[in-house]
């Protein structure tokens, strides 16, 4: 049985990665299992300079999902390179850094630094709904994505994955912007902009008023978007949004994802990612699938 895949030039022993912002830099999960079992680890969104994040409450639960407005709190790239990367390098798994910034220059500066680090790839976060400047602002249009991706491409030799926001009308055209600018892959979806109001106080629960929705609640939207993007571009897709088990993962791969990421699923059970790997293998055995690559994009449309 072969579960190995090649996503955007990154070789992984299986298609299961953990999503940015839901796994920290790996330390906390290392208590539960050997991180080398994962196909890859995508780090918390990391910026050029440290960011302190948004005011609390930053988390609120909704039906089969959660809204978050963390605001990209992170210790900055220098701290990451000195303290977290050496830890992550101890494991035999792909390390992909989720990169975020507020201006084009910031993204470029950050990627110059990332280019020199011993990492397997960069996931360019053009899609965080929780910070005022940057991120999603660039991710909203074909031109915006193309511009920033081309500038980053010039300074980055490593595999470049562009993370797309679902908060747009036509995600396929945005993905095209990334492809046209030379990205090696796209990842989707980031969180869907949402809101929850406490009917007793009449105030939104999140201090930021709005936040990003993730978890099983968003899965059908994510599947649809992965499918649409797979029809529009030739670069591979890292699919995510509500995956909590092997069946969900297979569904994303059938829709067109080469690899998948588990986000909020890590919160309900720290073992979700490695259970998903075993469940994918079980599905392969049951369905006589010798090579996991054989199911990518194999949805049979009506």
């Amino acid at each position, binding site marked *: 049985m072969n579960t190995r895949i090649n996503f955007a030039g990154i070789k992984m022993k299986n298609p299961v990665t953990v999503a940015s912002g839901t796994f920290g830099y790996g330390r906390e999960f290392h208590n539960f299992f050997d991180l080398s079992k994962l196909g890859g680890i995508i780090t918390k969104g990391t910026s050029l300079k440290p960011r302190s994040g948004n*005011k609390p409450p930053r988390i609120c639960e909704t039906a089969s999902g959660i809204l978050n407005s*963390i605001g990209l*709190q992170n210790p900055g790239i220098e701290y990451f390179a000195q303290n977290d990367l050496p830890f992550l390098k101890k494991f035999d798994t792909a390390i992909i850094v989720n990169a975020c910034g507020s201006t084009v220059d910031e993204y470029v500066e950050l990627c110059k630094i990332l280019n020199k680090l011993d990492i397997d790839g960069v996931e360019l976060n053009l899609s965080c709904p929780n910070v005022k400047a940057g991120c999603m602002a660039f991710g909203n249009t074909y031109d915006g994505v193309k511009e920033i991706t081309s500038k980053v491409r010039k300074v980055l030799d490593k595999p470049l994955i562009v993370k797309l926001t679902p908060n747009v009308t036509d995600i396929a055209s945005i993905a095209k912007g990334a492809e046209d600018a030379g990205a090696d892959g796209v990842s989707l979806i980031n969180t869907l902009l949402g809101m929850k109001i406490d009917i007793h106080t009449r105030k939104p629960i999140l201090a930021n008023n709005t936040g990003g929705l993730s978890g099983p609640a968003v899965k059908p939207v994510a599947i649809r978007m992965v499918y649409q993007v797979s029809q529009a571009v030739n670069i591979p897709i890292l699919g995510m949004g509500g995956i909590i088990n092997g069946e969900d993962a297979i569904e994303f791969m059938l829709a067109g994802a080469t690899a998948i990421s588990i986000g909020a699923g*890590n919160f309900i*059970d720290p073992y979700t990612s490695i259970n998903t790997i075993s469940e994918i293998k079980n599905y392969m055995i049951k369905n006589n699938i010798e090579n996991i690559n054989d199911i990518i994009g194999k949805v049979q449309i009506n």
Partner: protein
Amino acid sequence: MVVKVQAKLLDKIKLKENIYHFKVEAPEIVKTAKPGNFIEIRVSNNTDPFIRRPISIHNIDKNKGILEFIFQIKGEGTKNLSKKNIGEEIDIIGPLGNGTFKYNEYQNIAVIGGGIGVFPLYELCKEAKEDNKHVSTYLGFRSKDFVLLEKEFKKVSDNLIITTDDGSYANTGFAINYLEEDINQGKVSSIYACGPLPMLKAIRKLSIEKNIPCQISLEERMGCGLGVCLGCAVKTAESSKENPQYWHVCKGGPVFNAKLVEI
């Protein structure tokens, strides 16, 4: 070490109409649990409610491997939990939180709690008393009907003061007033608090005014309880508008040095 276990429910006691005391078999958690630690409990078998519920550790029996917690039914999650039957298993992660109650260097410790905030204080009183500390406990409740665990706390305190806001039981007024009196008489070397936010704010202020070390247990909405989502933020004392700084309740807390947080 933090572990995930399937803990068997050994005993279930209904303390009040909507408050339950659970005793579960969780030797792996109990082994390293400290007073002030909490656990994260899975409250459904499907995806709704989705995330775990943080609940404090109330009592641990290291010899028997038994862990106890008490919770109030607030919404769907705690309601589901209350329906578990004796003999059933509960999915628990713990012990969580690096910030726990520390009392070694102090002799006369004052433990103060309000309402359902009294639960995590029990293990603290018990361990401190076993270590021959002088434990004064001040527990405040709204009225007679809300008084909880009086008998239990009596056993683990050298001096227990119960108050009710309306005077319908024991002493009248707020627990903090009785604590303040004892501070003024020089009877208190350190303070430990858990309870509603207004009470914690008042205790924090008092402890700073009187220059007495104070540790408070905080709550914030959590995504993971493990320190990865960065959801459970609380401002540090140095935080300012221009330069906000945060601790995380599940990581640095839930127990903090009162001087180092802004609430």
